[in-house]
């Protein structure tokens, strides 16, 4: 026995040692599971799109390797073959690579959740791992975060399941993705994501780097909760169930380093410019960290980078922040600033490029002007073409000559409608293919007004209807560049309209209740369900209910009622619906709210002000409202307005009279 015990002990020790020495693993999701880069990503998966002439996935792998990751699982779905080819050729798959890359492909992944469920199913991770997307550019040293994470896990037994890395950056920073704008509530001491603890700070100066350090439980949790699709689902789930399951999420806030995810073209633009401006040092263009032959370039003043064999024409200027790939030739009298130009491009004379992103093998003729646009591989821009801001020329598009593309034009060789067909036809047979290609030939008539007389390509925006149009613009360039100054008011307006529809619904419900003689309990049920459907607070429900009931006679018989008629029809209604009221009006505050709603209504209907006394009286008799509440409302409400005061003074006499009566009534009842 003792020997066995000794063995066990030994076993334990070794396992602990193993835990210490186990290689750090990472899960890299080389798929975005969305279509933000369509139609560009139709030809090339997002992870392979060049950023500063290097595929984005290389930045991510370099980041992982430099933080000491020794084993990386790359999960690909869309165009997995291309990613696989790229990785096999890259330095990551060389036998000397310190980071062993395993490529796992499947067409069945539809979300991050699927990937992590697969990680769990295949039992790939044994210890804490780093979870990143294939489009994260970062030089953050996460070893500190990793240490903190491990320490936390050791101290309180696997309670912390995830540490998310955030970078400090104040609002308004151009590398903050507007879509990702986060407000984080954290426990200041333990750096825990908190919901409703006693002491926490709320921060809006954080940038989500989309780097998370996960415990192995994360994969299991994804399996357990099959409805988790994204990391946000996961975080929400953990926080909501924190009390029950006891899992916690922590964050790591860093000031140094750089970390951002290229989630849309806007981010692409800013990350690329940050990279050229050397914010991601040592991941700079001239470092040639991918270790590929001929990729090296030189760095000179004003952040001008030139690859090998670049030729620059007479009088051409590279002003600042320019990166030019190898074998690119530039004509005379060009002005280039803040641009990235790929390999093997030719650029004519008198070309102006500003914030242009040109990928490989692009041909630009003379007298072209390009501002803040993306020109993909193999595209041709003919003479005297103007690309205004946020244009996108996808693969192999030809534009021009003599054309000016308006802001935000997206041109692709794929017809926008072909897109949907593709989705349906994905698994269909060859016959369909033929039909399809016929379709294509039919569509092949390019519109010369759109893409120029010699142009090839379809405009994506113009051929879509308006709503989708907006959506696409948002998709590609993100929300920032289409700032919606009215959005705030819009949301308010929508809220108001929501109130309005809720009111109508309540009215409808009550009407039906009257006609079909539905029991009040059921009415309450219906109103409650409406409340949830429209996300309306209890207070508003009560006020709207009061309003609806009081307006009911007007609704039914028109506004030309006399006060007498009005009260005549209203009072029986109040009587029938009093259980409904009683259900909602319970606390003292509710009474006051109800009264203020009544007051508001009668202020609007000033001809029927005298009816108010009767209404209040009736409500009091029906025990909807309490006496003290009415009196309190009286004393507070009187301070508001002169006219109101007058009215109330009038009413007061009657009220007090009637109150006495009622008191007598009550006392007599009691007496009985």
């Amino acid at each position, binding site marked *: 026995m003792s020997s066995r015990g000794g063995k066990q002990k030994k076993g334990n020790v070794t396992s602990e040692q193993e835990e210490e020495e186990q290689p750090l693993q990472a899960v890299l999701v080389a798929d975005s599971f969305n279509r933000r880069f369509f139609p560009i990503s139709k030809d090339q998966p997002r992870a392979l799109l060049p950023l500063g002439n290097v595929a984005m996935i290389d930045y991510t792998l370099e980041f992982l390797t430099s933080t000491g990751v020794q084993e990386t699982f790359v999960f690909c779905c869309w165009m997995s073959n291309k990613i696989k080819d790229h990785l096999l050729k890259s330095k990551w798959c060389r036998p*000397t690579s310190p980071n062993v890359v395993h490529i796992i492909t499947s067409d069945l992944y539809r979300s991050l959740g699927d990937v992590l469920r697969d990680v769990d199913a295949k039992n790939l991770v044994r210890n804490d791992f780093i979870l990143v997307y294939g489009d994260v550019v970062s030089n953050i040293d996460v070893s500190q975060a990793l240490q903190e994470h491990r320490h936390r896990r050791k101290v309180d037994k696997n309670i912390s399941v995830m540490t998310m890395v955030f970078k400090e950056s104040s609002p*308004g920073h151009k590398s903050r993705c507007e879509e990702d704008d986060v407000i984080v509530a954290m426990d200041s001491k333990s750096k825990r994501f908190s919901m409703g603890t006693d002491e926490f700070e709320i921060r809006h100066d954080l940038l989500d780097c989309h780097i998370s350090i996960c415990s192995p439980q994360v994969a299991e949790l994804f399996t357990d909760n099959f409805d988790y699709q994204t990391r946000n689902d996961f975080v929400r789930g953990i926080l909501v169930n924190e009390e029950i399951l006891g899992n916690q999420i922590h964050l790591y806030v860093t000031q140094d380093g750089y970390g951002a995810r290229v989630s849309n073209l806007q981010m692409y633009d800013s990350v690329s410019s940050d990279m050229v401006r050397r*914010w991601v040092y040592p991941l700079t263009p001239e470092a040639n960290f991918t270790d590929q032959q001929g990729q090296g370039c030189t760095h000179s003043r004003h952040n001008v980078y030139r690859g090998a064999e670049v030729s620059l024409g007479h009088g051409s200027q590279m002003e600042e922040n320019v990166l030019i790939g190898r074998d690119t030739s530039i004509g005379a009298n060009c002005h280039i600033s803040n641009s990235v130009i790929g390999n093997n491009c030719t650029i004519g004379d008198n070309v102006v490029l500003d914030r242009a992103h040109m990928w490989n093998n692009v041909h630009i003729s003379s007298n072209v002007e390009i501002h803040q646009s993306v020109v993909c591989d193999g595209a041709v821009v003919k003479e005297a073409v103007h690309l205004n801001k946020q244009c996108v020329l996808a693969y192999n598009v030809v534009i021009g000559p003599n054309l000016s593309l308006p802001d935000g034009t997206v041109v692709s060789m794929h017809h926008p409608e072909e897109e949907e067909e593709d989705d349906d036809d994905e698994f269909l047979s060859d016959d369909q293919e033929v039909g399809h290609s016929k379709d294509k030939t039919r569509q092949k008539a390019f519109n010369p007004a759109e893409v120029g007389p010699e142009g090839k390509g379809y405009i994506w925006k113009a051929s879509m209807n308006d709503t989708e149009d907006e959506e696409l613009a948002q998709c590609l360039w993100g929300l920032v560049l289409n700032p919606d100054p009215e959005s705030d008011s819009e949301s308010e307006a929508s809220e108001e309209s929501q109130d309005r529809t809720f009111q109508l619904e309540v009215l409808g419900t009550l009407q039906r209740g009257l006609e079909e003689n539905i029991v009040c309990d059921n009415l309450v049920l219906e109103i409650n369900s409406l409340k949830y459907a429209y996300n309306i607070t209890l207070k508003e429900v009560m006020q709207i209910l009061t309003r609806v009931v009081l307006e009911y006679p007007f609704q039914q018989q028109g506004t030309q009622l006399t006060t007498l008629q009005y009260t005549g029809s209203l009072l029986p209604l109040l009587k029938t619906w009093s259980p409904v009221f009683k259900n909602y009006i319970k606390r003292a505050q509710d009474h006051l709210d109800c009264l203020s709603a009544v007051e508001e209504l009668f202020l609007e209907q000033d001809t029927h002000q005298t009816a108010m006394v009767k209404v209040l009286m009736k409500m009091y008799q029906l025990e909807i409202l309490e006496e003290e509440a009415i009196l309190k409302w009286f004393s507070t409400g009187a301070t508001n307005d002169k006219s109101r005061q007058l009215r109330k003074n009038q009413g007061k006499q009657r009220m007090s009279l009637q109150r006495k009566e009622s008191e007598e009534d009550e006392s007599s009842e009691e007496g009985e």
Partner: protein
Amino acid sequence: MGQLVNSDNRMPGADKEADLTERIEAFLADLKRGGCGTGPIRGSGETARETTALLRKVTAQARWSSAGDLMEIIRKEGRRMTAAQPSETTVGNMVLRVLKIIREEYARSRGSSEETDQQESLHKLLTSGGLSEENFRQHFVHLKANVIEAINELLTELDGTTDNIAMQALEHIHSNEVIMTVGRSRTVEAFLKDAARKRKFHVIVAECAPFCQGHEMATNLSKASIETTVIADAAIFAVMSRVNKVIIGTQTVLANGGLRAVNGTHTVALAARHHSTPLIVCAPMFKLSPQFPNEEDTFHKFVSPHEVLPFTEGEILSKVNVHCPVFDYVPPELITLFISNIGGNAPSYIYRLMSELYHPEDHDL
């Protein structure tokens, strides 16, 4: 250990070779990532030692039969190493030293004297005599052992450089002097500490923004109970009138006797010249580089602008261009004296040291 392996070139197994390439790759990756912001994480002395040790491993394990082959291999690896971090000149310097060692050992094996091919001259160019590449084909059994022995000697020399420089401290620092230095240099630190054992003096450290390595330097000096004052870089000129001597370190000594040193050194040098204060540079021999100052890309090193204008600034960053260079060029006429591990030299004498250390044919790899 590798010294006993003779030149049987079939011995190193495939795994050994894989191990070698792995180590080289790791070193390259280290170089590439090294020097985030505050300059190299390890001192250049350590880099020099590591490079030399790696080259010794290459010599011992790579497949070569003649000196020419070996030189070609070393050159190839050297090119990759220097390309990995062009600003780290020590790596290139050590490659050149090893090449020179191979040449010398080959010449000795052949029995010819070293003196004959010491200097490039017009006459020699015309007659194209001496040892050219074709002549390195001869096979010598003991060449490998000899080369490795010589590299070991070089390593011993490298180990002792800082001590050798520090030993000269008492000749230069006298009692009650006020000495200024800038930033942090391991060599200068050792130099001052050595002097502090016998003499009492006052050190003024310019903090060297934006990385402020001066703070660390000052802490280390004060721990060795040296009277130390930290000043802002802007105060350098104002304080200079009180200073008796300026002692600085450098990243590289260039072929013309100028320096490539940490940012702010040029300011110090100009202020010292204005006040006719002697400027002494502590530089071990392995920092001597055959590179001349020019506008070439490898001369400068720009790091992340984070230290100048933090990323947290927000909106302003999209409107400005921020640069954060690491090095200054200090022209040779501002320098009074170099103190190296082999003694003190004037800047004008650098050319001579250069020809002793490196072979002219190797200057560009």
